[in-house]
């Protein structure tokens, strides 16, 4: 029963950012509990500033936390590690490495033999559709291609959980739609466990098996919306006529709207 194995578990996680000047602190996250099951794509939506990136940085091991517990495969998160791969919002592929050397970076760090690396790099170059661009440098790529490269880099390192922080927010609308469909295809093909953060309701509903809606700051888990659409059927062309998609999207939209108005009233 692999389907019910929790790969990522978060229990009672809180976070405060200290403010050295005023002595007050920013309450970013409050009592977060969540579980990510194997092969599941969970999206997190919430108003801007509700602590989504904070959650992701804690899970990535980049931000130390004091209250609560977070673990991957039973191992408590204490710092960054290759068991959690991250795709950042901004282009974080290294400008001095070619596409293939960026994609193979994780394996290189692990010290795998060259032939093994190039074989696996080629696999992911093909998967994300970057064939022919292997020897290009990032500045020679479009925004969408850079993010494909970033996704391939994370996948190639074969993490247990993939963490994505608004990875498609910086590309144009047309490219974003293509990237969303590609990620859906990749999720289907690789069965990766993915936590996908976004502020776009459409994106959250399109990609998620389950969508976690966060409240305005301090971020709390407000509600979970389950999106019951087989991945094979998830193509934007079909979605506008898909009753389940429309129901989920409208539900998420309603929940997020409530929180945005709360944030405005404050």
């Amino acid at each position: 029963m692999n389907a019910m194995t929790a790969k990522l578990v978060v229990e009672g996680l809180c976070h405060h950012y200290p403010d050295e000047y005023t002595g007050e602190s920013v309450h970013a996250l409050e009592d977060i509990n969540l579980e990510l099951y194997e092969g599941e794509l969970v999206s997190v939506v919430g108003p801007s500033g509700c602590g989504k990136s904070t959650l992701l940085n804690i899970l990535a091991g980049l931000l130390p936390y004091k209250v609560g517990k977070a673990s991957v495969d039973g191992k408590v998160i204490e710092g960054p590690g290759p068991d959690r791969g991250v795709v950042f919002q901004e282009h974080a592929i290294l400008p001095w490495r070619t596409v293939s050397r960026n994609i193979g970076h994780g394996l290189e760090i692990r010290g795998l033999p060259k032939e093994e690396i190039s074989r696996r790099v080629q696999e992911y170059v093909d998967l994300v559709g970057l064939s022919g661009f292997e020897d290009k440098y990032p500045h020679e790529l479009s925004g969408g291609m850079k993010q494909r490269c970033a996704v391939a880099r994370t996948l190639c390192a074969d993490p247990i959980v993939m963490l994505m922080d608004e990875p498609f927010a910086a590309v144009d609308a047309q490219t974003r739609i293509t990237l969303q469909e590609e990620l859906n295809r990749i999720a289907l093909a690789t069965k990766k466990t993915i936590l996908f953060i976004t502020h776009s309701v459409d994106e959250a509903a399109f990609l998620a098996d389950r969508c976690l809606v966060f409240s305005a700051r301090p971020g709390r888990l407000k509600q979970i919306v389950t999106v019951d659409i087989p991945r094979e059927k998830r193509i934007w062309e079909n979605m506008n006529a898909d009753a389940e998609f429309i129901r989920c999207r409208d539900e998420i939209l309603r929940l997020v709207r409530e929180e945005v108005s709360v944030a405005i009233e404050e």
Partner: protein
Amino acid sequence: MQSKSKGPSLAWRFQRLLQIDAMNLVILIIGVYIVWSIISALIDNPARYLPSPIAVALSSVDMLYKGLLPSYFGDTLMRLISGSIIGLAVGIPFGLVLGINRTVADMFHPIMNFFQSVSGIAIFPIVVIWWGNSDKTIFAVILYTAFFPIAFNVLSGVREIPIRYISAARTLGASRFQVIKDVLLPGAMPHIATGSRLSIGFAWRAVIAGEMLAGQQGLGWMIFTGQDADRTAEVVLGMMLIGVTWIILDHYLLRPFEADTIERWGLVQR
């Protein structure tokens, strides 16, 4: 966007460079030669105040013949090369290590900025007080001069590397050493190139100044004693050699290295 790898070959670019340079150079040399000859012909006692180009050429032949010129020139170059290499070899890792920790980097940044701005010549007197007029003094000043600009530039370079590059490497499982090797070092490369050029340029000035103030041989020594002994042709010859050597070094070695590193990764928008 044009691909860099399909651009003109290095050999082709070098040839192009030579052609353009050759043209400009010939015009420049002829121009300088004419103006210089005229001035020299118009003044009284040119041998003392400004010997003609031909007189300078003759003195260089004379010094070549005596073996003094190659020996002085060799001494000066050796000082530059050894001082620069050691300065860079120590300065680059030093800047990198200081840059790793943001708090340490912020703390050291003004200190390094202070030292890189106090020129080698300004520290000469104190070093002479410590070690007298010696090779040790000259070498210490060259080393000092080469060290701080590169260390400061590398430190600045590391500080400017976006944190997300470091985070990305760490989430791929990179160790501290791997972060230095794969992110900090290549990320600071444009600054390393610029810093090296600055360091070597300042070191070149320091070599000459050092030899003038504390030397027993070298080009700096040659122009200094030339003045004492009324051998103006030697002074002019020395000055010319200093300038020409730098131009050659800078134009054919340091500048191409700097431009190539900065351009290759598209770190600077063209």
